[in-house]
């Protein structure tokens, strides 16, 4: 069974005060996420990622289509007990302490009273906020609030987790910790669906990704498949300070850094280049097939001008 099944989900808003016009935030979206996957939902800012998450959370209502999570309709309250959600740049009741906030959310999630205190302590320790559990949230930094957001999402041990830009506002250590947490959740058999525009995060974490832009799905697939399309070229690195004249015709591009030369050659010329380097007495350091990075795949799916505006790696 798919953990998340989206069938033609779409959203159109009416905008304008007097003269209403339709603005399409999400074109009919079809997507399926398997149980136990880490699924990345990628797109530049304003692509429709948050709209999709809000639709799945029941915060906005679809103009068409439907979605099921763990086989249940998105409006089914029973389904909501089994999901966790971290909104983008979360904001919480700042008059509460971290402990009180999580107790409150545990109550709303139906965590049994006898387990509540223990669960709250566990997640606070998990996100590294144990020492400030009695501090009001109004005194928390942005990064600490993001940790509270993660804590409230995993508090009730949900089966499916939705994170909207989970690395936002975190320092490098914090980002690393979130990545570790997601991997840990995957090991526990949870499904993680997260949106991001930071491609390196998606590349290092996700089993599969979908790319969305201007409310339209542009591509979906396993990260390994998307990034393994060999372009028929290899990168050869050797010790040297110049490209021998006999190789110039065989290399499509080359860079010299200090005493290292990096050249890209067609696969068909690979053996000839290696032989030529041996004849010249050059020491080969590495030979690597050139693969498409997720960023390159992403950029290809967007128009060049759009990609430049919205991508960071």
């Amino acid at each position, binding site marked *: 069974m798919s953990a998340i099944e989206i069938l033609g989900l779409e959203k159109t808003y009416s905008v304008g005060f007097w003269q209403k016009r339709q603005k399409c935030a999400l074109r009919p979206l079809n997507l399926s996420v398997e149980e136990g996957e880490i699924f990345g939902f990628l797109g530049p800012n304003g692509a429709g990622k948050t709209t999709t998450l809000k639709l799945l959370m029941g915060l906005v209502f679809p103009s068409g289509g439907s979605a099921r999570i763990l086989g249940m309709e998105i409006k089914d*309250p029973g389904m909501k*007990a089994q999901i966790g959600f971290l909104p983008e740049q*979360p904001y*919480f009741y700042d*008059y509460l302490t971290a402990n009180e906030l999580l107790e*409150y959310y545990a*109550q*709303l999630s139906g965590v049994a009273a006898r387990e509540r205190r223990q669960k709250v302590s566990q997640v606070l320790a998990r996100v590294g906020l144990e020492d400030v559990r009695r501090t009001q949230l109004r005194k928390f930094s942005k990064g600490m609030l993001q940790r509270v*957001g993660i804590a*409230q999402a995993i508090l009730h041990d949900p089966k499916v987790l939705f994170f909207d830009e989970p690395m936002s506002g975190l320092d490098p250590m914090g980002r690393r910790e979130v990545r570790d947490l997601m991997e840990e959740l995957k090991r526990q058999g949870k499904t993680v669906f997260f949106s991001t525009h930071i491609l390196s995060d998606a590349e290092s974490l996700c089993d599969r990704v979908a790319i969305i832009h201007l409310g339209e799905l542009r591509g979906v697939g396993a990260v390994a498949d998307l990034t393994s399309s060999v372009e028929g070229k290899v990168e050869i690195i050797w010790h040297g300070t110049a490209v021998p004249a006999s190789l110039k015709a065989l290399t499509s591009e080359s860079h010299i850094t200090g005493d290292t030369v990096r050249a890209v050659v067609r696969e068909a010329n690979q053996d000839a280049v290696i032989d030529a380097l041996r004849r010249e007495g050059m020491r080969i350091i590495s030979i690597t097939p050139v693969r498409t990075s997720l960023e390159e795949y992403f950029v290809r799916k967007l128009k060049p001008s759009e990609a430049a505006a919205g991508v960071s790696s």
Partner: protein
Amino acid sequence: MSSRIVHIASNTFREAVRDHVLYNLIAFALLMSGAAILVGQISIGIERLVVVNLGLAAVSLFGVVIAIFIGIGLVSKEIEKRTLYTVLSRPVERWEFIVGKFLGLAGTLVVNTAFMAIGVFAALLYVSRAFDRADVWVLVALYLIVLQFLMITAIALLFSSFSSPLLSAVFAFSLFVVGSFAEDLRGFAAMVPGLSRWLAMGAAYLVPNFSSLNVITSVAHEQPITRQFILSGSLYALLYTGMALCGAVLIFERRNLK
């Protein structure tokens, strides 16, 4: 009642307390102490009347201000600050959220009124030196004032479910003012002819009739309030509150939280 409603209500109460809403009690205490001392010195024979009038009017005014100014933010503030996202993504129905918010603010107002009632009775004791049988009617007046608070809270919540805090405040306060003259509006409607009569009558019965629940003057003059009046007032207030809450739920159930 769903336990989630109770948790939402307790959190709303806690928010009001931590936002220092109950600090108004200090102003009220100062007002009542000053009034009791001043009245004792300048009025002869009507100390009780003045203290009851002033005390109940102050209870009403303080409560209305709290009901409107907190009520208008109950939903809109949660949407604006996006605190609602992590609540509604849990197994919480939208109607439970509205009812919980209403009960939380209603609870705050009841506690606030209870403390102010102690202040009114303390001032009464100070000027009269002893309680009188007629002072029981002060309790009845306080009960009817609390019913008015429930109506205003539900109305503020209704506006908060679809409008901005500023517009909600304007709407709720206007309705409170018009509702305080609802009896006069009904009298006016009875006098005008033709279509205007029906329009005025419709408006008069649509606005909340706060004036029918205002017995401050009667109580100050030690006039008893009949059981039937209390019962019909209670029924009217609860019905109106229920309808306003249903309206808020119906609107909020369909609202996109952009």
